[in-house]
């Protein structure tokens, strides 16, 4: 008897006896064949030593846990449906946050390019001397980098969180139906060390650049407007202060 003959006979006998998890059982015998073949036995020798498929199948008892498991499975499924609803809402909110952050990064990026190039389409940007605007442009560019790093990290975190949740679900079902449990997946993102260092460096440098440019931009604006509240002096927001 070859390996395939043995396995298909065993499968038929097991199904005839109404045994559950036939694939699981066949997996064990397949592994047995793999080990023995690696030791140099032929498929015929291995099958002969294993015993007759019909006799082996008869030794697998139907432990009567089918119905019990069925009940437990149902409870698990109902529990998981509620957990899924809750998790789906959480994931949707978290992804919305990710989208908002990406949009903010795109907005600050665009604004910084406009300020640096001195573009003022439809006069949407409040009037100010070019150099003040350029410094604020740099400040916004730094903010864009910071937001982009944040986006990457949050996306990695969410992806890992969803994978972890999927594994939890898989294991809950596996436990309810008696299949083997896989190791859980950690919830924090598993970025490569090099990428993590690079992201951290980008974040720190852009944070520092943002702070410096912001303060510098305020100071230069105050000096060139000869006023502490330069936005009043330049008549921003349609309000000109004391004038």
């Amino acid at each position: 008897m070859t390996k395939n003959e043995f396995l298909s006979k065993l499968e038929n006998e097991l199904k005839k006896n109404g045994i559950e998890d036939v694939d699981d059982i066949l997996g064990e015998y397949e592994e047995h064949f793999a080990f023995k073949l690696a030791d140099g036995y032929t498929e015929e020798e291995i099958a002969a030593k294993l015993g007759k498929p019909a006799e082996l199948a008869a030794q697998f008892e139907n432990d009567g846990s089918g119905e019990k498991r069925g009940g437990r499975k149902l409870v698990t499924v109902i529990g998981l449906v509620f957990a899924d609803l809750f998790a789906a809402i959480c994931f949707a909110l978290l992804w919305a946050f990710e989208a908002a952050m990406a949009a903010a990064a795109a907005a600050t990026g665009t604004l910084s390019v406009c300020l640096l190039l001195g573009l003022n389409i439809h006069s949407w940007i409040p009037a100010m001397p070019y150099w003040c605007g350029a410094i604020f442009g740099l400040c916004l560019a730094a903010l864009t980098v910071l937001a982009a790093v944040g986006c990457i990290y949050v996306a990695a975190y969410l992806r890992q969180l969803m994978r972890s949740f999927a594994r939890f679900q898989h294991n809950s079902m596996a436990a309810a139906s008696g299949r083997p449990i896989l190791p859980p997946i950690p919830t924090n993102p598993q970025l490569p060390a090099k990428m993590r260092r690079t992201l951290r460096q980008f974040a720190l440098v852009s944070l520092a650049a943002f702070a410096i440019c912001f303060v510098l931009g305020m100071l230069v604006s105050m000096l060139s407007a000869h006023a502490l509240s330069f936005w009043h002096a330049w008549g921003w927001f349609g309000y000109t202060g004391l004038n």
Partner: protein
Amino acid sequence: MNTQYKKGVLELCVLALLKKHDCYGYEISEYLSNHIDIADGTVYPILRKLKSDGVLTTYLQEESGGPPRKYYSLTDLGKQTFQNERAEYLDFAKSIRALLEDDNND
């Protein structure tokens, strides 16, 4: 030897092996069929029964250069069961031995 009779003892042997360390199915099958005259395939139904009794659990472990292997390990119930059944068996075997050897001498 009677298969049913052997099967009961084999359960105890499996527990004894797993008491030492966690094994994958083939390891157990190989050890038992080397020491006791049984068909290689007999061990797998026993493992499955012990698992459904809650005496064993399984977990998958990655192996270098191969698919993950299913390891068997004793549960707390399994350790307890092993202690009880081991003592019971040794007691039982002692009585039988005494009886049989006594019988031989007559």
